[in-house]
């Protein structure tokens, strides 16, 4: 009796699946004999979870996807392949297919989701690529989680398709407000990486998420789709001016029974934080409460910090500054500010938030000039960083993916009366290779070395001629002093300064950018930063 009750409890886990209108289950279910046929193919016992699932559901499909399951042999159950058919086929055609995997779902591009048949009898689900079977990507801690998320993905797709089908012609020309539901897909080339449906909830000043579905392909870096989708949601929360708190909700159908969804309403009932986010957060040190339907602002900040690609030096710096984490992460994540520029602003600016949010207008000229000077230095150092990383390549374009590794240290202390923007910055090549830079040298020649101590004087030529010599005597020995390209055109005005540099053994390098072009770029970047929050 107890055994029967236990079996009933186990089976009840799949009931939502069998009652789901979107998911079709097999008419004729397999029996113990069918299970035994599968068991004979494996050394270890097949997980109980998989057995109970196929006994209750057989095979399931919906919305163009199918979980293989097991069909009742000898019964009229259509001609759909099941796990045993696919297993035998794979073992026949793919000699390297691992002996401990039981296929669960066949995906495009030779990707297969499989249940691991191991001695521990857990029902872990992994994703493998048939061309690289040695790499396994976790797709679910156990089968029940995987099936729950698979079903949630179907609902996400169904929801998105219903919404798009229900749109009228005029909807296509209507710009959505932040508080209206917006549906979008994140794509990498021709692959849809994630589907999202979100809005800013004006009532709670928080973000509502109705659809969060990510693709699992072995070609992606582990967790990359979740990181991208999460970054998108949280930066949008920031840009909408709201908190980083997120609620996962269910939406209601349009009033009047239409196909689309009501733009404003949601049901009060929330839905669980999607499993991929739970797993990703755990692996990045952020604990989310199991069964919870959302997170608060502080947790959102921790997630955004974990999701944004920041160098270690920035992660160390952030807790020591008063700048809101969300401001920095959103600036870097949206591409408005490269990470090195952001670190320079954070370390050197009197008011970093003012610069990162671009609030200063050009008619507030004194404040603008102070910010502009710091940003010119940041642009030159970024440019140097980019060129050093790509020095052995044909161009320093961002389109070249491969770069050499480089350690940039901008933590040096300020030298007495020297302006903070001329702090000495050290570039080091970890592999000991000399750092090559092809920028014009105004005095003598530049000798490449694995470490390069540089300082920047981002001034127009008249100011450079005025202060350059004083600066050189104050700063002490460095490998290179970098000045804007303006100096190339007006070398005669800088004779004294360049001569003084030669005496101190400092090489003067001309950066590729003129102050005027840098100022135009700075104006554009500040404008972009200023308007990024709507």
């Amino acid at each position, binding site marked *: 009796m107890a055994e029967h009750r236990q079996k009933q409890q186990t089976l009840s886990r799949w009931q939502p699946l069998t009652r789901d209108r979107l998911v079709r289950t097999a008419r004729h279910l397999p029996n113990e004999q069918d299970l035994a046929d599968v068991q004979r193919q494996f050394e270890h016992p097949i997980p109980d979870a998989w057995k109970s699932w196929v006994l209750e559901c057989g095979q399931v499909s919906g919305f163009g996807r199918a979980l293989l399951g097991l069909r009742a042999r000898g019964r009229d159950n259509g001609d759909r392949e099941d796990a045993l058919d696919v297993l035998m086929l794979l073992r026949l055609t793919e000699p390297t297919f691992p002996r401990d995997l039981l296929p669960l779902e066949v995906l495009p591009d030779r990707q297969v989701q499989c249940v691991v048949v191991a001695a521990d009898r857990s029902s872990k689900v992994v994703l493998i690529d048939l061309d690289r079977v040695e790499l396994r990507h976790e797709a679910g801690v156990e089968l029940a989680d995987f099936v729950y998320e698979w079903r949630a993905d179907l609902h996400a797709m169904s929801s998105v398709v219903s919404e798009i089908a229900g749109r009228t012609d005029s909807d296509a020309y209507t710009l959505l407000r932040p508080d209206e539901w917006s549906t979008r897909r994140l794509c990498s080339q021709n692959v849809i990486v994630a589907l999202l449906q979100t809005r800013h909830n004006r009532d709670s000043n928080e973000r509502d998420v109705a659809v969060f579905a990510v693709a699992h392909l072995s070609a992606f870096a582990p967790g990359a789709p979740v990181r991208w989708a999460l970054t998108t949601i949280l930066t949008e929360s920031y840009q909408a001016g709201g908190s980083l708190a997120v609620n996962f909700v269910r939406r209601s159908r349009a009033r009047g029974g239409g196909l689309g969804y009501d733009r404003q309403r949601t049901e009060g009932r929330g839905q669980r934080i999607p499993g991929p986010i739970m797993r990703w957060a755990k692996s990045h040190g952020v604990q989310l409460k199991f069964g919870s339907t959302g997170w608060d602002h502080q947790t959102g900040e921790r997630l955004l910090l974990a999701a944004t690609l920041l160098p270690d030096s920035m992660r160390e710096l952030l807790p020591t500054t008063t700048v809101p984490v969300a401001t920095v992460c959103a600036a870097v994540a949206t591409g408005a500010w490269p990470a090195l520029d952001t670190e320079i602003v954070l370390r050197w600016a009197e008011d970093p938030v003012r610069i990162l949010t671009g609030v200063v207008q050009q008619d507030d000229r004194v*404040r603008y000039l102070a910010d502009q000077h710091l940003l010119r230095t940041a642009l030159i150092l970024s440019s140097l960083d980019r060129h050093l990383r790509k020095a052995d390549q044909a161009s320093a374009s961002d389109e070249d993916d491969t770069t050499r590794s480089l350690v940039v240290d901008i933590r040096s202390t300020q030298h007495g009366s020297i302006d903070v923007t001329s702090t000495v910055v050290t570039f080091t090549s970890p592999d000991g290779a000399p750092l090559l830079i092809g920028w014009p040298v105004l005095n003598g020649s530049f000798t490449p070395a694995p470490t390069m101590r540089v300082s920047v004087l981002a001034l127009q030529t008249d100011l450079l001629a005025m202060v350059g010599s004083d600066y050189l005597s104050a700063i002490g020995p460095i490998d290179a002093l970098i000045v804007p390209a303006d100096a190339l055109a007006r070398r005669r005005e800088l004779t004294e300064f360049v001569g003084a540099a030669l005496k101190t053994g400092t090489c003067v390098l001309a950066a590729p950018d003129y102050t005027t072009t840098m100022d135009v770029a700075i104006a554009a970047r500040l404008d972009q930063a200023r308007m990024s929050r709507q």
Partner: protein
Amino acid sequence: MIATFWVVERGPWPGQDGADVDGVQSAADIIAVIERRLFSGEAAAEDRTRYRIACATIERAARKIGTPVAHVDATDLLAWFEGQPLRTVHTPTEVAEFAQTSAAALHGSGGFGKAVAAATRKALAAQAGLVITVEPSYLGSADVVRSDTRPPRPVASRVVEANPELAELLDGVERSADDVFASDRWRLRSTQRLREQIRLAVATGEPLPIGMQAKHEVLTEAFRELHHPGAPSGMIRLLYAAHGAESPPFRFGPLPARPYRGTKVLSVGLMSIRHTEADAEVSGYWFRNRLVSVPGRSQAEDEAYCYRDSVPRLHRLADEGVTDLVVRHTGYEPAAIGFYRAVAEVIRERDLRVQPQYLIGARGVVAGTPWPRVADV
């Protein structure tokens, strides 16, 4: 960074004779034109670029032909001018105004303010222009004047102090918004939340965040409550949360009672383009959308534009004999706040009543509380 004050006697500046070798005169002309456009909200992106180049031209000329009269720490200077723009170019005719502005901004800064005041006095005495340049601090820093203290708040908000007693008085203010939004649970809840935020802002002297929760009609009605005859007088700091930009404090207090006349009524929408379906029902729009929603401008500046634009036009309406202005709201909080800031100021002295109308979902057009209300009389 160091801010250097230069006295430039003969640029030549506009109106002065002489060859414009360094381009000061033409650059000053360009600056004057673009500042007018910035003020009127008509400046385009190209204008901002031209403005930057013109300022840089005069700053370069100042270093060449001017006389340095003060070196001050730029960071200290900006801290004292926090919340107030600080231009670099002041023509001879503008120096007197700058002397007043800087004296107010630097009040309490001791020797720092005196150094700036001495520089402006020298420019005034010589009837010269005053130019500020910003250089990195490796210029000889010995004679740089620094400030021992920094002000705790932006210039405009320094007049607003924490006032818990005033916050308590706000509890007794008549709640007219409840009648306007009757049976609209969402807006009633939003209004109540806004009232609590206003009370907190007044009690602590901290800014009231605008733009994230309460919509324009809720803001308008909540601010209207602060102008009922029984309301106390005071100020609230406003912060536009989207851009983090603070606008000048919002003044409130009881409006004077006026008898109802209603002899000449004008009906307008608040902002063009936003609700074109209302075009047939209004005589025109108060603001042109293009002049309010200008790219590259913060919402606080949008609000300032709307206020500046509305004050003289409301006076002109009163001059023309218009007694009632019906305003159909079209959204955008900075436009609404800027407009009613001007309304509250103008109707204290002019015989004009403003009747807001809100477009609220299924209820259609809903009449708001008039400024001032007829029952106020």
